[in-house]
């Protein structure tokens, strides 16, 4: 999404829509005109735990701020002093390279001091409880905690015992708010008119165990998307009920195991990672069958719109849920997701930093 537009010189200031197209015949006077400005919003979130309680305006604010952060990433010096003196502790109870490094880069780009804790190596393995670990981190002077945990709801427990800000880098099956926001940013960046409203977006794969899917469901339904979830019935367990529940805004929500119907005319296809454990836990037949019926292949992708975006939260099992030629093909925006991840996380670190101890 582009934050700057070109304007006819001398026009009285009208609010310009972010991502607005260049007006035909706009006079260019040697520099791009003043950037789009946004309605001043009050941002309520002291933590980033989930996107279920984000208003549409807050989502827009994240998108706009991320665009500014992306501009910083294009500079020779990719750093601003905004969070100088702020201490960010990153503690991941579940291994992850991509998200952890993304947060670290984001925090450092804002000049924050970063402490990285791999929970396996810390006293957590000696049986220290989550609450005690958080208290220790607070005593060590952390202002912000970025955490990933294998149990749904863990960040809420952490937030209750921490006087600073908690950002959720993924909890159990429940939520991955920063991922959903960077996914949305990426979609808006590539889709015509910079909007997802009314677009057909398909989330394909192991939805049941996916926090990426759940958080995307919130952001996409709030954005008025035509949302489809597709996968084997055992991995869609319970989502038909969600699809039947009251949805905000103008979204539609369909759950199906019919992959052809799901992909037909899709504007975005997001493939989710399938783990070998699913076969072992009795949820699926041997994964060969999953690949045969549900993998995102070139042939299946051809059912979607010719400009459809291919996305994946990573890490990918190429050859299992997504074929290599699709993952690296022209429609793939997977590497943009990674870049945008840094910008979105910078935006979120910035936005929560201004919120004091609340209500």
């Amino acid at each position, binding site marked *: 999404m582009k934050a700057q537009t070109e304007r006819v010189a001398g026009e009285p200031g009208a609010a310009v829509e972010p991502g607005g197209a260049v007006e035909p015949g706009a006079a260019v006077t040697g520099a791009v005109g003043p950037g789009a400005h946004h309605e001043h919003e009050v941002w309520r979130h002291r933590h980033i735990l989930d996107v279920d309680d984000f208003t549409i305006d807050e989502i827009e604010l994240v998108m706009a701020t991320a665009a500014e952060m992306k501009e910083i990433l294009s500079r020779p010096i990719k750093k601003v002093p905004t969070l100088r003196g702020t201490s960010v502790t990153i503690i991941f109870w579940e291994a992850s390279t991509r998200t952890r490094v993304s947060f670290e880069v984001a925090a450092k780009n804002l000049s924050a001091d970063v402490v990285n804790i791999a929970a396996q190596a810390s006293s957590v393995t000696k049986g220290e409880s989550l609450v005690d670990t958080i208290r220790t981190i607070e005593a060590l002077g952390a202002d912000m905690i970025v955490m990933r945990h294998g149990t*749904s709801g863990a960040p809420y*427990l952490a937030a209750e015992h921490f006087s600073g800000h908690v950002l959720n880098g993924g909890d159990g099956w429940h939520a991955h708010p920063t991922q959903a926001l960077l996914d949305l940013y990426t979609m808006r960046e590539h889709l015509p008119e910079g909007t997802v409203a009314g677009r057909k977006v398909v989330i394909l794969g192991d939805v049941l165990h996916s926090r990426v899917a759940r958080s995307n469901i919130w952001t996409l339904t709030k954005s008025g998307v035509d949302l489809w979830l597709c996968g084997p019935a055992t991995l869609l367990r319970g989502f038909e009920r969600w699809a039947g529940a*009251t949805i905000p805004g103008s979204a539609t929500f369909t759950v199906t195991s019919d992959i052809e119907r799901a992909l037909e005319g899709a504007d975005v296809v997001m493939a989710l990672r399938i783990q070998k454990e699913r076969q072992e836990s009795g949820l699926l037949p041997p994964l060969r069958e999953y690949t045969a019926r549900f993998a995102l292949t070139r042939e299946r992708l051809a059912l979607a719109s010719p400009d459809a975006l291919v996305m994946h939260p990573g890490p990918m099992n190429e050859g299992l849920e997504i074929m290599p030629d699709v993952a690296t093909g022209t429609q793939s925006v997977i590497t943009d997701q990674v870049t945008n991840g840094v910008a979105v996380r910078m935006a979120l670190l910035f936005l929560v930093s201004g919120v004091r101890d609340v209500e």
Partner: protein
Amino acid sequence: MSSRALAGADLAIGAPVAHLELDGVWAVDPAAGREGPADLVVEEGVLADLEWHESSGARRGRGRATSDGQRHGLVVAPGFVDLHAHFREPGFEDAETIVTGQAAAAHGGFTTVCLMPNTEPPIDEAPTLRTVLARAAESGIPVRVLAWGAATRRREGKGMAELGDLAEAGAIGYSDDGAPIPVGLLRNVLAYAGMLGRVVADHAEDRELTSGAEANEGLIGTILGLKGWPRSAEESVIARDIAILVDVLGSDSSAARLHLTHVSTAGGIDLVRRAKAAGLPVTCDVTPHHLALTDEWLAGARRWSWQAWQDGPDRDGSGAPTANPWAGDALAGPPYDPALKVNPPLRTPSDAIALLAGLRDGTVDAIATDHAPHTLVDKEVEFGLAANGISGIETALGIVLVAVEAGKVSLLRAVEALTVGPARVLGPAGVPAPALEVGRLADLVLFDPADGWLVSESALSSRGKNSPLLGRSLPGRVLLTVGAGRLAYRDPDLA
């Protein structure tokens, strides 16, 4: 108006009540099938006099609850009987002891409590049972403590415990609560227990279906990313247990009796209803939290089950309302409160409504608290790792009164489910039917439905502060609890 006179204002806990006069209180006596304004006198620990005022709204409480505009002031009822509580001693005294449990029970208006045997060591042998009963008797708090004996050795499900010895030592029945009695043994336990005149209480759970489960399988569990606890895990076991009971009655022992404890699903209640209609000796109890709380509390909502049921905008496949707390502004607090993690899990509003209907129509015999205190260490952890259980013996009356105030059950019926109902479940091996009977040792509770109390850690006598109602006000402040003619609890502000 009511007045009361309690002679010897500094009466100690455990001391006999020398003289107590209650004028114009609302007496509720389910054994006599009546409620209404009355005057009551206790003399030297015995209920010496009970004068019903005529022309009262005395009525049987069966059927739909009616709002009672005539009820004034304080209410007196027989002391409550809790069929199902955990006092954690021996083995887990950090969470509760028999003494602290009795104090909590008295605060809740209970004068009889039946303890489950999942202690360490478990109550699977007579000596352990005797120790527990002796501990309760010598505590000085006149709350009668009874015990369920374990059905299987060490509750491990591999062989019958010494059921006969346990009966002789005073066991009121048998249960492996916390765990189901394995299908292989259940038949034999039912038969043997029938022979001994004792009821078998089964915790109906198919553990294969609930492996790793964290929350009721439903919309809330799906959205919160919690592993589902399917209804079939309870319903299938209830159905199976009833079928086995039928075989036992036909071939082994016509005296066998089956009690299903903490039934939480609409389907489960339905199975019990049908079994009763067929004349089978099946009884069941439900907990206050399954009547009034639902799985949407896990998402941070705090509506009573009937409010969620009514306000819920969505309908499930069968047309029953489902609560969607994200649509609207029902979310009142943070999600994943580990105090809400309980076995069986909090279910949907439709289930709770079905439980309330079962309570009204008599399918539900008793309200039992399943009081399950836990230490902070075991509860203040990630939701999926938290120990199961709600510390509920002190909040039971309050929850029940909220339901009465909302018209979901009549006061008479509710008190019946807390007194006469549990006694009937236990049968001759248990307690005499609680009643306000002149000439008997006084066993009663006096409470004020109009006066509330704030549920807080300091207000709870139990060591277990794991209540989801912390910070909430409940109606029905207990003013006085008298057990076997002695003072069990007295409100600090009572004159």
